[in-house]
């Protein structure tokens, strides 16, 4: 019962957090799963959390897609630089606050949030992550309440939800959870795929019949995705591709040795990026219109209007000629058909006249279509070309 509730909660939450970047969403889900695993009575926790929608709204209010994009870009440039708690994303801090509230449900036990469980051996822990990723991919290890004394220094006293100030300034490294590796900058896509419940959650989310488009829309707008979706999408692809291009050789070798579970296909990402670029070429992003020289526009109108009028008149002559020819031919053709069935007694003569009538009608239709092409294609095309040329002419003059 409890497992199903937790699973449904995470599934629904995963569905509602689609406005986030994938790695952020997985981090958030991993943190929530850690909270679930850390409490003894999940039903109490569910009462505290109220609903996935409420939690999604809390995250959405603290999540800014643009800031996250910039943060990821700057993080990729800085390598594995450590992140202070104050520099952590706001949504991570918000979830950590929820974890603290969940910990308050059990005052008899010392609960340490993910942030509080920092270790001092940065290099050692990171090496452990790289050498034994499958061991660190077990969330159960972190889910169980740990003995706080065993993981802290003997001379320190860890109080509930608080850490000594001297430890907060120290460098840190996390091994266990997605959140900790997120803070360390070692939370990779593949590890997230292996250990977070998002995959399971997404599968279950499809089964859920509760669809609330208004909530999705509100969450998307809250996170800033609704304002510039195309830019965010392309930036996500760029960021993802940059992560492949700038990846360290050591990590690349490690990834080649490890079995890849549902790893994203690089080729498909590249194709997607090309498709996005092509789409952007077709539909260029809205930019400020260039300045137009009013003087040049007036001059162009004065020159272009009479020239265009003359051109239209010239094109009208053959158009009307084709119209007349087509009307004559079609009339003659239908007259011939009526004559063929009304005035001839010999079958061979009827067939000859009927054949001739059909040929004449086909030529009349060709002339009629040519007239339509002259009106709708040539004349309208001339006017459109003159307008386009005028736009370029006036813009070019304005830029100069």
């Amino acid at each position, binding site marked *: 019962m409890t497992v199903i509730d937790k699973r449904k909660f995470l599934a629904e939450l995963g569905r509602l957090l689609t406005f986030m970047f994938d790695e952020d969403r997985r981090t958030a889900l991993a943190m929530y799963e850690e909270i679930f695993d850390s409490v003894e009575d999940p039903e109490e926790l569910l009462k505290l959390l109220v609903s996935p929608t409420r939690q999604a709204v809390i995250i959405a209010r603290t999540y800014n897609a643009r800031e996250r994009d910039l943060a990821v870009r700057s993080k990729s440039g800085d390598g594995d630089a450590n992140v202070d708690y104050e520099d952590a994303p706001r949504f991570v801090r918000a979830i950590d606050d929820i974890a603290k509230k969940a910990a308050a449900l059990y005052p008899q036990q010392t609960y340490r949030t993910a942030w509080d469980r920092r270790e001092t051996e940065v290099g050692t822990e990171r090496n452990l992550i790289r050498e034994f990723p499958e061991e660190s991919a077990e969330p159960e290890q972190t889910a169980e309440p740990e003995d706080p004394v065993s993981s802290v220094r003997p001379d320190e006293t860890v109080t509930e939800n608080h850490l000594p100030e001297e430890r907060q300034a120290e460098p840190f490294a996390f091994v266990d959870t997605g959140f900790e590796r997120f803070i360390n900058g070692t939370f990779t896509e593949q590890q997230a795929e292996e250990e977070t419940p998002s995959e399971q959650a997404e599968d279950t989310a499809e089964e859920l019949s509760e669809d609330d488009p208004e909530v999705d829309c509100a969450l998307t707008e809250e996170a800033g995705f609704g304002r510039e979706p195309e830019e965010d999408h392309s930036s996500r692809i760029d960021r993802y591709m940059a992560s492949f291009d700038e990846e360290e050789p050591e990590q690349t070798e490690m990834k080649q040795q490890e079995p890849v579970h549902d790893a994203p296909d690089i080729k498909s990402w590249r194709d997607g990026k090309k498709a996005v670029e092509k789409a952007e070429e077709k539909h260029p992003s809205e930019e400020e219109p260039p300045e137009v020289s009013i003087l040049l526009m007036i001059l162009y109108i004065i020159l272009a209007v009479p020239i265009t009028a003359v051109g239209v008149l010239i094109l009208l002559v053959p158009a009307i000629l084709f119209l007349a020819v087509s009307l004559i031919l079609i009339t003659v053709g239908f007259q011939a058909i009526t004559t063929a069935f009304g005035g001839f007694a010999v079958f061979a*003569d009827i067939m000859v006249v*009927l*054949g*001739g009538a059909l*040929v004449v009608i086909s030529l009349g*239709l060709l002339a009629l279509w040519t007239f339509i092409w002259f009106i709708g294609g040539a004349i309208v095309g001339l006017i459109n070309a003159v307008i386009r040329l005028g736009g370029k002419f006036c813009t070019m003059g304005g830029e100069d």
Partner: protein
Amino acid sequence: MKRMWKVIGIVILTVFVLGLICFGVGLLTGADSARIFTVIDDKFQIESTISLYKNYAEQMKDLLSELPEL
């Protein structure tokens, strides 16, 4: 526009080919052009109309030739 050209082209070509087939079948089955022309002339008076316009053109030509040169 290209699609319309394609559709119109197919329709026109179909009618044209059908007309040619009918014309060929008529000729193969013994059609006589003189007989056909006679029937059409009886109905539309084509020969008399053509001769009428010929006379009209000759009269205009004579009239223009009688005008003094400027």
